[in-house]
Each structure stands twice: as structure tokens, then as C-alpha cells.
């Protein structure tokens, strides 16, 4: 694991409005009170590994949890900021929409899963499937990430200051992955891509926000090869018919499958604006290549 700059706990954003002692208050009472609050800073003590601590916050409040938490801490978080002084179990900040969730220790599986926006900072290590199906969230991990991280990641940025375990970015869509350390292997359809100025800007912004050190030029970038976006479909009948026609017309034939024959979609390339931009930038470089380990399924459409 790469050594990460130890982050100092940021100062509390303001005087504590209320302290919830989870040895005396029920989770339901605390979360309900947090949902009612429109502003303020709230402290949580004695979390004792409780699940769903500060889940569903949707206002601009600050919550500081002193101790380790269980599953789904700050789940579906919006707008506010949650800081955990300790470790977190599965699903930290799952489906976060906006705001910030920060943890001083380690997070186990699926940190930031399906997150749509906002920032998740894990100052220690994150376990398997960190950023799985992420949809726009930015995740910065000070240490390492476990296997299958960014699996089916759709959008957003995953920045890893340490190492990434096997099958990083398997079946990735349009998310961007940045790793400072080593990558044990890339998953299917994930490839190394060149870092352009726009990516350095993103890294600069996220590294500054996370406050864990690191410089953009230390990172490698990974993303989708986009070979799994559409099914690969043959159409021998059309080819044969075309060849037959060509014999009489003496012209070249085009391979084209009808929707009926495929029973599914055409494979013509369709791109988003973002995708077009990324493709044009990757065309600038000839260095784009498959990374440390050849993905399992390299045949187009093999992973169907």
C-alpha cells in the first residue's frame, strides 16, 4: 500500500447544536430528528457499530460521528456533510446524491455504491466493490480498494491513492478511474487511457477536496473500451443474399442484420456528448492500451 498523507480531522463547522448518544437514544429517534433539522452541527456518540446512522439526510446540516458505524452509514445522503471518526461497514454513503461523506478509518464493501453525486472520502482503505454502479459520485480513497471496485461504474470519478485489487472497473461504462499505486488486474472492457488536461483538472480538484496529498501526475487513468455496449450480432442470411445479388450486379455487399432476425437491437454505434468528447481525446493518443492483465472477455460481445 502506498503511504498516504495522514489527514488532520477538519474542525467542526460550528458549535454543536445537539449531541445524540446512541446508548440512550434510538436510531429511529435520531434519524428522524436529523431529517427534521434544517441547519446546525450534530454530534453522535456511542454509535457502537449501529446500522443506517445518519441515513437519508437531505438538508444542509453537519453530522460528526465519534466511533465506528455499521452498514449504510449516510445512505442516500443529500446536501449536508457527515464525518465518521472511525470505520464503517458495508454500503457507506450508498446512493449518495450530493454533499460530502468522509470517514477517517476504513470502509468495508460497496462504499459509495450507486452514488449519483457528491463526494465520498475514505481516508483509510476501502474493501471490495468500492464505487460499484456509481452514477456520478466522486470517491477518493486514501489507501487501497478491494477487488471488483467500480464494477459497472456508470459515471463519476474514483481516485485511489493506494493500490487496486483484481478486476478493477469490470463492465465499466463512463466513469473515470484514477489509481496512484498498482492495479492487480483490470476487469472486462476496462482499459488504461491517457490522462489529458481535463483529467488532471479533475484530479487536482478531487485531491484538494480530499486533503490526502497526491499529485495528478502520479496517477494512471482507466475507463471503458466500450466493446460491451451493444450486442454483437451476425447476419449470414443477409450476407449470402447480398453476395447472390452482387454476383448479378457485380457490386460489393454490406453486412446488415434486420431487427427481426436479431430479435434485438442494432449494433450501430451511438454515443453521448461526453462519450464523443472522450473518444476524440483518446484518438489523439496512440498509447491507449489494455492494461496489466488481459481482460477475461476480449471478444466483442462475449460478456452477454
Amino acid at each position, binding site marked *: 500500500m502506498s503511504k498516504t498523507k495522514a489527514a488532520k480531522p477538519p474542525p467542526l463547522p460550528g458549535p454543536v447544536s445537539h449531541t445524540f448518544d446512541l446508548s440512550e437514544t434510538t436510531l429511529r429517534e435520531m434519524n428522524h430528528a436529523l431529517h427534521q433539522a434544517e441547519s446546525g452541527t450534530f454530534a453522535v456518540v456511542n454509535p457502537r457499530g449501529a446500522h443506517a446512522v445518519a441515513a*437519508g439526510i437531505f438538508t444542509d446540516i453537519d453530522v460528526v460521528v465519534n466511533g465506528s458505524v455499521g452498514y*449504510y452509514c449516510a445512505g442516500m445522503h*443529500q446536501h449536508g456533510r457527515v464525518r465518521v471518526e472511525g470505520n464503517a461497514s458495508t454500503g457507506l454513503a450508498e*446512493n449518495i446524491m450530493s454533499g460530502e461523506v468522509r470517514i477517517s478509518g476504513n470502509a468495508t464493501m460497496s462504499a459509495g455504491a450507486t452514488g449519483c453525486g457528491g463526494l465520498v472520502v475514505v481516508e483509510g482503505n476501502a474493501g471490495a*466493490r468500492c464505487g460499484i454502479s456509481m*452514477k456520478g459520485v466522486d470517491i477518493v480513497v486514501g489507501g487501497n480498494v478491494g477487488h471488483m471496485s467500480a464494477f459497472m461504474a456508470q459515471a463519476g470519478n474514483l481516485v485511489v491513492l493506494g493500490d487496486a485489487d483484481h478486476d478493477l472497473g469490470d463492465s465499466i461504462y463512463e466513469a473515470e478511474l484514477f489509481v496512484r499505486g498498482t492495479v492487480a488486474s483490470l476487469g472486462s472492457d476496462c482499459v488504461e487511457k491517457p490522462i489529458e488536461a481535463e483529467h488532471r483538472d479533475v484530479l487536482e480538484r478531487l485531491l484538494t477536496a480530499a486533503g490526502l496529498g497526491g499529485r495528478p501526475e502520479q496517477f494512471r487513468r482507466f475507463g471503458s473500451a466500450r466493446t460491451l455496449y451493444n450486442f454483437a450480432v*451476425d447476419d449470414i442470411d443477409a450476407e449470402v443474399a447480398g453476395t447472390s445479388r452482387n454476383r448479378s450486379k457485380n457490386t460489393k455487399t454490406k453486412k446488415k442484420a434486420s431487427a427481426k432476425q436479431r430479435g*434485438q437491437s*442494432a449494433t450501430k454505434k451511438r454515443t*453521448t456528448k461526453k462519450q464523443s468528447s472522450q473518444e476524440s481525446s483518446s484518438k489523439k493518443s496512440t498509447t491507449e492500451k489494455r492494461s496489466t492483465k488481459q481482460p477475461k472477455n476480449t471478444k466483442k460481445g462475449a460478456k452477454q
Partner: protein
Amino acid sequence: MTEQPWHLRESFTFDRNVIAEIRRAANTGIYRIRGWGAKRELPTFDDLVFLGASMSRYPLEGYREACGTDVVIGAERAERPVKLDIPITIAGMSFGSLSAQAKEALGRGANSAGTSTTTGDGGMTPEERGHSKTLVYQYLPSRYGMNPDDLRKADAIEVVVGQGAKPGGGGMLMGQKINERVAEMRTLPEGIDQRSACRHPDWTGPDDLEIKIIELREIVDWQVPIYIKVGAARPYYDTALAVKAGADAVVVDGMQGGTAATQDVFIEHVGIPTIAAIPEAVRALKELGAHRRVKLIAAGGIRSGADVAKALALGADAVSIGTAALIAIGDNDPTYEEEYRALGSSAGFWDDFQAGNDPAGITTQDPALAGRLDPVIGGRRLANYLQVLTLEVQTLARANGKSHVSNLEPEDLAALTVEAAAMARVPLAGTTWIPGQDG
């Protein structure tokens, strides 16, 4: 069908469907993807009959005496339980797989009948929230469009573990239907062949799911009920584990359940029929002392009031319909026969829901085709259909002496086949014999 000379004997093993599929596979190199549900012959509710009244059973007056149809879901835990006027709900179908007009028609019809509709893979649209008085929000493995603001707007949350058409498989939405709006809702590039995840990203197994359900309840401040939907695979264990995980309702979807797009091999060869799934789910509920407390919603191939009544008699509290609701609002409408033929199909046979070129304007995102469906008329058709189903259930319930449809029971049924008797756990007609049970 053209009459063939007798010496042209068709192979039972390699019939025309089989030969056509082999040829299609050889041409394309890809499995067949289609919509609808299982088309093969399966044991159905038609293999059961009601016994009706007799010397020892008094019927209720069909036109005069009340026969209740309401059902309440989540009364034990939710601050706002779901209260339905009829025990027939509309199953989860996404915007994306269906047009906005179709979703609106479903909402309108369900509202008129006093029942719920359900979102699908891809999130909740403002239109469907606006047109559905009671809306169940599906929480799926893909989490496409998953948004806590919408979660708080929902009247119930349905955690989808599986679907009858494809237990163990994720959703599919082919590129033709991933237009700009659908792509934006799902955070995906336009035009890709979208294959949804089949496993939830942040929980594995029933112990995790129990915690997930606590999280969902916390996020919505314990306001609404939480359902768990499973494909009919191992309904005894799945139902027991759903109860253990804290569900207010368990939706068991048999293999006849429909889909917008899935591999044909999945649709036809995975899962068990609805008639076989209900008794197993009921057995689990009874053993846990949860029958009627945790509601059982049966789905998969429900077509008529008779089917609804039989599902209730086997122990379900409500049913869910999908394919039948689409047919009611206009799917496979013979009006468009010429267009179905141009697509190589025919009204009543068309199942290429994945293709996005639905002549009836229901399973499409093409604005011109979608505009063919008048959501007001479609909603009225669905409301009429739901009314007929309800009247039929009441007719059968009264004939069996029940003042509420939930009082229907297995004792009211007999089976016409040994297979149905074994699966449904009711006696073979004219006997007291239930295969697999003593006596």
C-alpha cells in the same frame, strides 16, 4: 395453417418452432431476446375448479349481499399502510420499457379501480407519480434512477430480488428504447443495449437485506410498507427469508410472469409455475405464524377473475397483473394487424417488446407510435377490465359462501389433474387424494 399431406409428418422433437429457432441462431450467433412471458404449456389455474355451494355450504346472494374486496398492506410497521379497494395490483413496469402514455394509462386505470401501480427499472417519472394515487417504488439491483426524493414520494417500496420471467437475471432494455430521456434517467449512454445488474450492489443474502430494509425504513421515517419481490424459484425458503428480513409483503412472481426483454431460454426454462409457488409461500408464512400478517401477493399469468379467486383461495392476499394489464390498454390490438404482419408477426402473437416498434404504442419510446395510445381511453379500458376481474372474484366468493374474498380457502378448490393436485395441494376432483400427502 396450410393443410399438409399425411406423409409429411412433423417431428415432435424438431417441430417448426424448434427448426426456426435453430436457423435463427445459426444466422445471428446470439440468443433470442423477446418480451412477454413463458409461452410453453404449463400447469395453470385452469387446472383447478371451485366446488361452490352445496348442502353443507351456503352461498351468498349474488346481487344483494356484500362481499368485501379490500386489502391493507403494512399495517403493523408502516405509519401509512397501503389500502387497496381490490386485491389486484399493477405489476412493476418501467418507463423506458413502456411509453409515458402507457404508464399514464396504467395509473389512470388503477386509480379508478382503487389499486396501486408500480414503477420499474429506471426510476419514477413525474407523470406516473402524478397519475397514480398509490404508487409502489421498485428498488432494483441496477438502482437506475434511484433517488431518495422519489423514495419519499412513494406509497410503498418494493425491493426486487427477482422476477418470474427471469429469476437470477437482470433487466434488459435494448438500444432502440434508450432515447435521450431514458438514458438520462439511467445515467447511461444513449443507444446502448442496457443489461441491468442481477445482484444488488450493497447487500448479499437475507441478513444483509434485513439491514437494508432498516435503512430504507429509516430514510422514509417508517412511513410506508416495504415489499420484497422474488421470482418463483424456491418460494418456501425465499418467503421465509423475506419474512425474516422484515418485509410487510412478499411478492411471488411465477414463471408465467412477463418481461419487456429477456432471453427466450430464460423465460421458458427458469422458475416454477405460479400455481406451484403459492402453496409453498403460504406454507412458509404459516410455519412462521405470519400468514395474513405479512401479505402475500401472487403474480405470473393472472388473466381472469377466476385466476384471482383461485390465487386467493390458495392463500394469497392479493395478485399482481402485468401482461393482462397491457393487453387491456391495447397491446396486440387487432386494429394494427397489418403492421404486426409487416413485422413478421400477428396481433395476439407479437412479443418483440424489446424492439421498440410496437404498433400499439405501448412498449416503445418512438413518439409517433407512443402517440397512438390515448392514455385516457387506455385507462378506462384497464378500469373496466379490473372491474370485471373484481366482479368475477366476488361472484366466485359468494358462490362459495364467503362475505370477503380473502375468506376463500383451499377447501373450496379441487384439482382436475394429478399434477395440479400435487402442486396446489388440493384434492384431485372427486377424491380426497392430494399427491404427496397421507390418505
